[in-house]
């Protein structure tokens, strides 16, 4: 437990002091201001425009930050040999992968908490103060569930990067491979639901292939702004299943990554 806390401590300290971290927070604050301006051009549903825009940027900034920071953290550890000082202390390679993963999941939580708070309360405040009679009610409780869902997905992306970093040292290659998985995971999910809606019109081979990929690739869709606005109900069963899948997938990635890293030469 002390080891896990140690990794969480150093990962947080190292990453929250990056200039890019403050840049991301500032960029998101500017996005909120811009989204308010954007609502002026919407005649029918300004609350939805506001929430759609701020949520899309929240997801984009969280995913991008997690991808960049996780890749950079591992790349520095391996390429610059920061890992030597850790392994030399008797920390096993499996513990290193587990500890770093835990640290990065905690960092994702802090990132989602900071940006998510700005998203929820910023949108709530803008909605309340400036959208007048056209506004819809923002449900903070549902918003917290949306943030939880986003954190789970951000952590999963982090673990995908950890997995690739256990056998690749090049920053660009790890980043690229992780982006490919992220995009494939997001696309295959839409395809999966589409083929199940149109079962009769799609050949069984394609259907099985897409179903296979749906279960082998991680899923990155999270609850959207419609839940926050109450347009869509909170589907707790779907959320629980999604969470279970993310936990199992994350555990699988860390386990396989640890086994690979155990055999790796760190020259």
């Amino acid at each position, binding site marked *: 437990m*002390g*080891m896990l*806390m*140690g*990794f969480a*401590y*150093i990962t947080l*300290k*190292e*990453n929250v*002091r*990056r200039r890019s971290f403050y840049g991301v927070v500032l960029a998101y604050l500017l996005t909120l201001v811009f989204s308010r301006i954007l609502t002026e051009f919407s005649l029918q549903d300004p609350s939805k425009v506001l929430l759609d825009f701020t949520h899309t940027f929240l997801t984009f900034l969280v995913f991008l930050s997690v991808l960049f920071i996780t890749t950079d953290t591992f790349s*520095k550890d391996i390429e*610059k*040999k*920061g890992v*030597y*000082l*850790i*392994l*030399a*202390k*008797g*920390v*096993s*390679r499996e*513990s290193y992968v587990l*500890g770093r993963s835990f640290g990065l999941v905690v960092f994702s939580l802090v990132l989602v908490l900071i940006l998510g708070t700005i998203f929820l309360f910023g949108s709530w405040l803008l909605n309340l103060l400036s959208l007048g009679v056209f506004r819809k009610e923002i449900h903070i409780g549902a918003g917290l569930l949306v943030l939880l869902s986003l954190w789970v997905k951000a952590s999963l992306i982090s673990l995908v990067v950890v997995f690739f970093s256990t056998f690749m040292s090049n920053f660009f290659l790890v980043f690229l491979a992780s982006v490919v998985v992220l995009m494939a995971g997001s696309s295959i999910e839409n395809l999966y639901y589409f083929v199940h809606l149109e079962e009769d019109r799609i050949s069984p081979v394609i259907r099985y292939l897409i179903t296979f990929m749906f279960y082998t690739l991680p899923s990155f869709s999270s609850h959207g702004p419609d839940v926050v606005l109450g347009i869509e109900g909170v589907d707790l069963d779907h959320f629980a299943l999604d969470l279970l899948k993310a936990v199992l997938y994350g555990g699988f990635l860390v386990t396989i990554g640890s086994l690979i890293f155990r055999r790796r*030469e*760190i*020259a």
Partner: protein
Amino acid sequence: MKDILLLKDIRKSFGGVEVLKGVSFSVRAGEVFGFVGPNGAGKSTTMKIIMDFIRPDSGEVYIFGRTNRDPSVRRRVGFLPEHPYFYTNVTGYEFLRFLKMTLSIPGEEFRRRVETYSRKLQIDWALGKKLSEYSKGMLQRFGLLQAVLSDPDLLILDEPMSGLDPIGRRLVADLILELKDRGKTVFFSTHILPDVERICDRSCLIIEGRITDIIEGEDLHRIEDIFMERVREIGVREVL
């Protein structure tokens, strides 16, 4: 005396080139052992094999009588790599706290060790600063501080004097001798021969991946002559 570190016929190749050609030697408990060789002789590769960062093609390494593949054996080892990399956004003290948490060092003991060793290495005033603000010499001394933090029985130091000014070299040499007086074993690589003469009990020469000599006693005072003689015999271009 008991062997603390034992290397048996270590061979290692990179891309078809044999870098280590059957390296064998042992380090006894309580001694300061110098590992001397010209650039590219295989010193750092040997260090990495001892620490299990890379695996030999053949041969075995034993630390405290146990295989070096067992990570728990490194709990009693302090290691300083040749060019230590530290996280740039954290302070020296925060990095040490990370090690404290990872190694489960009790709070009082941690404070005592940090205070004692940081003063000895004259780095105590800088522990609150970010590691990115440290000079090369400060990083080297900080590297030694993190290596002794766990109070190890065996210290493995890869070029500990590199990047240090004469004062820094003196501080590090004094600390090595003090640790020896406290019964610790120190194994360090270097190509600075006067340091070996001054602080080592024994040393070995490695040239082109082969151990050529184990030098001890009075012979340590003429290590430079022995070293140059071997280099001429073997004909290492980089040195000559």
